[in-house]
């Protein structure tokens, strides 16, 4: 079982959090902080597994994380998950994000956390791995987005236009505070199909 999936940046700011067990908001924040604390002090070239996420239930659990550019992707899993498998799953997740957002960067995650959730929902459900095939995931996500668009129809058009205008009006915000693209190519991946 996957207990939680957290994405936060190099400063510990949460970019997405998904808990598959219920915690109060305060505890969730505490977990994120603690996880960030554990993960961020590790060197780049050490292993991606960490024991002792004290907060998320017990010694059976492990933190498995990957660090891409400015973001940490952390999965908290119990012993029924394969460690290397989860590492690959993170990779699939990030590659899927990359495909869906077309060169994903931290800003995409910041502004579209709902989309990230939707993508994740096609991969992991209730803490269990639902789908690992990237094409299948993207297909389902696209289909749902298309449906959303068709529902918006004419009524959605002005809203989109306004949102585009808003983005234009505030040139200082979007990409010029670019925190750097998330590099997707990670050399040392164990081969996994």
């Amino acid at each position: 079982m996957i207990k939680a999936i957290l994405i936060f940046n190099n400063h510990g700011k949460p970019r997405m959090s998904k808990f598959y067990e219920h915690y109060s908001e305060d505890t969730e924040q505490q977990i994120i902080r603690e996880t960030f604390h554990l993960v961020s002090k590790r060197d780049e070239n050490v292993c991606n597994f960490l024991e002792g996420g004290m907060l998320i239930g017990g010694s059976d659990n492990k933190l498995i994380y990957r660090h891409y550019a400015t973001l940490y992707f952390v999965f908290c899993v119990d012993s029924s998950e394969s460690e290397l498998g989860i590492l690959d799953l993170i990779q699939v997740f990030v590659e899927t994000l990359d495909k869906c957002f077309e060169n994903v960067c931290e800003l995409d995650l910041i502004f579209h956390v709902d989309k990230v959730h939707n993508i994740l929902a096609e991969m992991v459900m209730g803490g269990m791995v639902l789908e690992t095939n990237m094409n299948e995931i993207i297909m389902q996500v696209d289909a749902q987005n298309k449906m959303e668009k068709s529902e918006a129809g004419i009524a959605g058009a002005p809203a989109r236009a306004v949102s585009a205008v808003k983005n234009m009006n505030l040139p200082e915000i979007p990409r010029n505070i670019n925190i750097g693209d998330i590099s997707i190519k990670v050399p040392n991946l164990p081969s996994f199909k």
Partner: protein
Amino acid sequence: MALKIVKGSIDRMFDKNLQDLVRGIRNHKEDEAKYISTCIDEIKQELKQDNIAVKANAVCKLTYLQMLGYDVSWAAFNIVEVMSSSKFTYKRIGYLAASQCFHEGTDVIMLTTNQIRKDLSSPNQYDTGVALTGLSCFVTPDLARDLANDIMTLMSHTKPYIRKKAVLIMYKVFLKYPESLRPAFPRLKEKLEDPDPGVQSAAVNVICELARRNPKNYLSLAPLFFKLMTSSTNNWVLIKIIKLFGALTPLEPRLGKKLIEPLTNLIHSTSAMSLLYECVNTVIAVLISLSSGMPNHSASIQLCVQKLRILIEDSDQNLKYLGLLAMSKILKTHPKSVQSHKDLILQCLDDKDESIRLRALDLLYGMVSKKNLMEIVKKLMLHVDKAEGTTYRDELLTKIIDICSQSNYQYITNFEWYISILVELTRLEGTRHGHIIASQMLDVSIRVKAIRSFAVAQMATLLDNGHLLTGNTQRNGICEVLYAAAWICGEFSEHLDDPMQTLEAMLRPKVATLPGHIQAVYVQNAAKLFATVLRGQEGATDSQTAQETTQLLIDRLPLFVQSANLEVQERASCILQLVKYVQKLQQKEVEVLEEVTALFAGELNPVAPKAQKKVPVPEGLNLDAWINEPPPSESDSEDEKPKAVFMEEEPRHSRHKEVDEKELARRREVRKQEQANNPFYIKASPSSQKVYQEAPGVEHIPVVQIDLSVPLKVPGMPMSDQYVKLEEERRQKERAEKKKKEKKKKREKRSRGRKADSGPESEEDITPAHMVDIVTEEMPENALPSDDDEKDPNDPHKALDIDLDKPLTDSEKLPVRTHRPPDVLKSPGEEGERAPQEPKKKSSKKEKEKKKDKERKKSKEEKKKKKHRQEKEEEPGETLPEKPVQSAENNEVAAPPATTPAEASDLDFWLSSAPVPPSNQEAPKAEPAPAAEPDSAPEAGPASEPDGPKEAEPEDAKSSKHKKKKQKKEKEEKEKKKRKKHHHHHHHHGDGGGDESVQNGTVGEEEEEEEPLPPMSNYCLLAENDYIKMLCDIQGNLQDGSQVVVSVIFENKSSSFLKSMEFNVLDSLNSKLQRPEGAGPHDGLAVPFQLPPGVSNEARYVFSVQSIVMPQKLKGTLTFIIKSEESSTHEKLDFKLHFTCTSYLITTPCYSDAYAKLLESEDMKGSAVRLEGVSMPFHHLLARVCFHHHFSVVERIDSCASMYSRSIQGHHVCLLVKAADQTVLIDAKCDESSLLGNVLDEIKQTFSQC
């Protein structure tokens, strides 16, 4: 109207959407909280509007705020509103918000049931999908109960997208509503073979998750998973299955044997590291579960260790980490194979990655032996010095202590060394683990008597240098060791060289800076030392020293009397008065020694930590009963504490107590208020330090702070390193002395033909440096047996421990939504029921088709005699999935319970014979096997063997080779099947090289458990003369129904060399010695070894036998040449080989149900025998029958047992053994009466001999 909509949407354009919110938050870095609170106000306004789009937008923003840690539960109702929007866009937003913040405590969740049900049955698959995803996060017991049936229907949805989600969510449903597991399980099982790989993977996922918690209920699925494992190419699925097998193997060792081969293949073939790693992990689990030797066992271990070594050596830190992790699992059972990689693991200790270092430390724990303990600890000590960061250093410290103290200090040969290690560890600065070191010091010096004088000397030095330990900070944890030091010096003060000096050290003013509990120990032990000093002065003419000591105490103790610590103060003032009194007496020249000594007389024994728990409750004592009449309820308001003693209280009282507690809390509050307002009340005690500083006459004492960055060598303390050298020398000496002895021993071992492992032996040979008597911890008399493995009662998985093989009963079905109470008979077909039922019917039809397909497939794959049984098993499966759908009145009668054992024995069959995997080449060969013979039904039972290693191994190349060979000698078509089964045994035996009876191994294990059994041996004297002695053992050959193996031990009794031994037997019509091809029928067989004086060795001969119902004797001769220095003579020895009927029997376990069937069968002929005057305990008697006559115990009830065995030609022999004072009655049944008669005679003879 349309205009209104457009207007609304134009209004909306200027609402803040999620992106605006995020942007806003980023622009208000300084006053983020304030900005967000205004946003929340806006959101509240938006939620009040009717427009669903506005609401959805608001909820979307709330989801984001929830991630930032804001509580949004107040909007729960609005979230439900958004969820129930008909538009997918909004629905998705609603479900996402719900999944993020709903939980079991959310009360609006009960409003969602109908909405979710509607979404689940929506024609739009994404509506259903979104509902399932959301539900997976917030499902409650109520939702699970109400929706279980709907979800189960979705498991057979036409779209795989829905199917996989439905399958996956079932796990959550099971967790919340365990009753649904049994009705839903058949369908879940079916999904394991779903055509869509995603659905299949989901089903595997769910079952693996279920099985992980309650593995035994899922054993019957093993064949199915096995098939999946050999056929699937999806690594995710494979990993899950392999992990599942890892959980199952401990329950069923035979499964492990079946697994080893395909797993090994995977290990060799896969390129995916994750799969490789999981395979290795499961192979390790298999090897752990196989307690006794399988021949290719060591090869598998070697393979695992080898692969792990590759992982560890990899530059990828992840692989390194996992390699170490898996290594630690092997370590538990096969420490030796890991120990050879010590270099690698020590190397990992230097890794820059802390996770890896910690893992390596874990491994070290199991790698120590008496031999290398000192060396490893020395290395660790180096690391301690180097380590930066207290956490890692503390970890090292605890590991060192763990390693040394493990299994009762098993590996410590020199406790002086250990004490000095502990003392060295005290020089660690800033460690938190002072108390661990302290307790080790105490433990060792109390329990190892021989070390006490050394320990006391060390501790005295420690006390003397106590200021070094307390040096830096008050909070320094290391000063805890002074606690131990003071206690040891006091308690064992008779070992002190100079008690006076130690006493002086303990009373130094500086001591007052130590924590209170340590001071208290100082004071108390100063008194003990005082007694010792007085005793030392006994008989001395002038009592001046004694008086000086008394004076010292009187001078110094007042310091402690002023202590802020209550304990210290109390003890100090008590002792001070005592000493003053002693002084008075001394001045009167009264002899006080005896009285003072008596204060501390007697020795303390260590008490086991669990001793208190294990004191049995005396009979007739009810701890829960009231001693007096329960007090009236009003009176128990004050006495909280005594009430807590009673574990259970009657509910009546507990209610009262609740009230009282509230009342108490109120009073407490009032009291606090009062105290706060009362100027005379001294509030919570100020810190002790403050008091100490205020205490008059103390602050002038100079406290010198010594800041030491370099670990200090305390003068007069031995360094642990020197012990390593000393130990080395000592061992060398010992080794030299022992060499001769050892050699002899080894030779003996070898000659007995058993594989002698020299590893542990040589380890045992290291004798401790000095007499070590570890005093065992005291336990109360008649302590209760341990009951440690308590499961967590709160584990939700406990509820899922459900037997899935039992057929469903009427009462077990998922609740179906009805509009009327169930007692209205006609309701189910009507109204709202229609809609949900239709798809069900459809699906069940499909199911049936699928079933047929499956059956067809199965029958192709498994052409076995068990076919009819499988069909029987199928039947309940067929009815089960529909059952929950049906309403109460048209439920079918539950399937007969008889199917359960059938299924169980199917598993047994699968485990005991091989050809399930489709890739298996043997399948076609198995085909010609005749359909079920009449007696094959019970056969599945006997064939099973829960603990024996000989049944059921994976087929491998070797076995098929054997097979080919055999087929040449093929005799009867009928025997083929048995033969096939026996192949496995053969390859197993052949590989091992020592086909020394496996049965003996099995019985031997039992023997160990059942403690005091007299030693037994199957070897009996065959013949003997002045030169040579022959012992023999005859065993039926498992591979072949017509073979018997005779193992003969030849022992050279003479002082000359024996060579050219030739073994020959005169064949009879019935039995023939098997000679190599080309040899004549009367040629002897050369014994394949020569015997030096005093040596024995074993050789094996195979005989072919036709009939096994009668015992028989064969005459034989051994010829040999005796070669001494001057001459050589030719000698011969005649012998008679006695083939008893027992030797044709093979220990075969049998399940009691199969056994019962066997007894009912008509072919069985009965017989009985009565043994008089048997005085041995019943379990000895059983062990004897098991051992000498190759039976296994099926069931034992008190002094009555049923036993089973099988002959090499497949005769079943059943015994019912009853014992009543010195008389043993054996009722027996067998399908061959003369065999039975002979076996019984032999049993009788066995017992007449003893």
